[in-house]
């Protein structure tokens, strides 16, 4: 009986938390017309997100591209087909690896810092202070952060993709004997040979990263706004923000891929 009650309470809490995040996202969207008043905070947040995440993102992306080329190349060499290595690395980076890596790093660096910052404001009554000054915390705090990550996540993803493909090219040449010309021709052709301005792989990847950015910022702000009980509460908010962001990145990544490659 206790187990059932505990399970129901757990599910009710999780449903409530998810509802709070969705509600926060809707309220943030409703605040969009006020963004000209928040331009300074938006630029500050863009700068913070970009600067904080850029070095780690580039290092991880370079190694992810190298690992991808290495693992794929080993199998391709068995079939004497290493000439398609550039194509496979470029498509994998743009479709999945680039957006995923960038989003996870943003969740760990920027998402955690958003949750800590807003959580600290919550427990030290700064959020209440905004409320009593008739300043909507969603408009003042959440909107610039959500927009900043919605802009910076795709931007960092583009850099991740490029560095990842470059990392793959080094392995292709040094370890698998694929000429750089062959690798880069394959990579560039796979990303340009479509009738549209951008091939599906690129725009689906960028759309994914935009959605990831919005999800990370919203989940992290929600965790911060729900913090209570001093330093321990702030620590729990950071933990919740990173855990839920990574979970959402994986689930949303699957749903978007399924929608664009199997449903349409």
């Amino acid at each position, binding site marked *: 009986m206790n187990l059932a009650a505990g399970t129901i309470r757990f599910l009710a809490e999780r449903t409530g938390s998810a509802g709070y995040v969705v509600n926060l996202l809707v309220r943030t969207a409703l605040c969009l017309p006020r963004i000209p008043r928040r331009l300074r905070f938006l630029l500050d947040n863009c700068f913070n997100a970009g600067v904080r995440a850029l070095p780690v993102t580039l290092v991880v992306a370079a190694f992810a591209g190298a690992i991808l080329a290495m693992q794929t190349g080993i199998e391709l060499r068995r079939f004497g087909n290493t000439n398609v290595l550039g194509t496979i690395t470029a498509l994998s980076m743009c479709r999945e690896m680039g957006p995923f890596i960038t989003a996870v790093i943003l969740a760990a660096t920027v998402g955690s810092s958003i949750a800590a910052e807003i959580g600290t404001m919550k427990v030290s009554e700064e959020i*209440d202070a905004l409320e009593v000054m008739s300043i909507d915390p969603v408009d003042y705090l959440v909107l610039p952060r959500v927009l900043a990550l919605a802009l910076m996540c795709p931007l960092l993803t583009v850099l991740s993709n490029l560095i990842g493909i470059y990392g793959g090219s080094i392995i292709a040449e040094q370890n698998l004997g694929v000429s750089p010309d062959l690798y880069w021709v394959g990579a560039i052709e796979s990303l340009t040979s479509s009738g549209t301005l951008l091939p599906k792989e690129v725009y689906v990847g960028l759309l994914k990263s935009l959605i990831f950015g919005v999800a990370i910022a919203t989940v992290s702000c929600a965790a911060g706004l729900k913090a209570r009980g001093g330093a321990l509460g702030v620590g729990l908010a950071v933990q919740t923000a990173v855990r839920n962001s990574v979970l959402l990145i994986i689930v949303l990544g699957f749903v978007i891929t399924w929608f664009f490659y199997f449903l349409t």
Partner: protein
Amino acid sequence: MIELKNLHKRLGGRDILKGLSVKVPKGMNFVLMGPSGTGKSVTLKHVIGIFKPDLGSVHVDGQDVPAMDRKQLMALRKRMGYLFQNGALINWLSVADNVALPLKEHSQLSRSEVDDRVHEVLKLVGMDHAGKQEPPEISGGMKLRAGLARALVTNPEYVLYDEPNAGLDPIISEQIHELIGEVRDRLSVTGLIVTHSRACATQCGDRIGILEAGKLAVEGSVDEITASDHPLARAFMGQGSD
């Protein structure tokens, strides 16, 4: 006038307020005292509409606060200032920017008018030299004075003070008490002050109410409470109670 009637509130599985009734007439400082956990700060948050009562009513100038929608609440809050325990200054803004925040958000004043008004209130609280400093760089007493300046910058009719001398040494506390008295006398602001401190109550208050088990146990003028035989009044107002 602030009027609370038969206020009940349950938080975290505990009954905090159990039938609190208080009247704060205009132009007066009403001091709410009581042991920790009796719902003093919770009472303030009902007045400004952060909390809604489970039962009972909260009226400010005849307006029913819990029944207000967001727009009405915002209008009410523009007429009120709130001094939080530690000032609750926004950490990444300078002292002057903190004080200017409500004006920048809600008023149509030009930048120079905002600067003038900020300088005026910072001078009133003796902080005109520290406008460029950031909250982590200033002391607890300075944070409180900056918080008071922010509460006063919009010329409020009411100011709610939550433990205005918590954690301060007696000299700084004395300065804060004088400021609260000045705010009432010079600006005709009505105050609701929550405190444990006898010095704060006697120096700032016109009337004192002492909370016990979620409702008012005793209420009267400063002289009446000081002379009262009620055990709580003796505990809070007796010699050495600070």
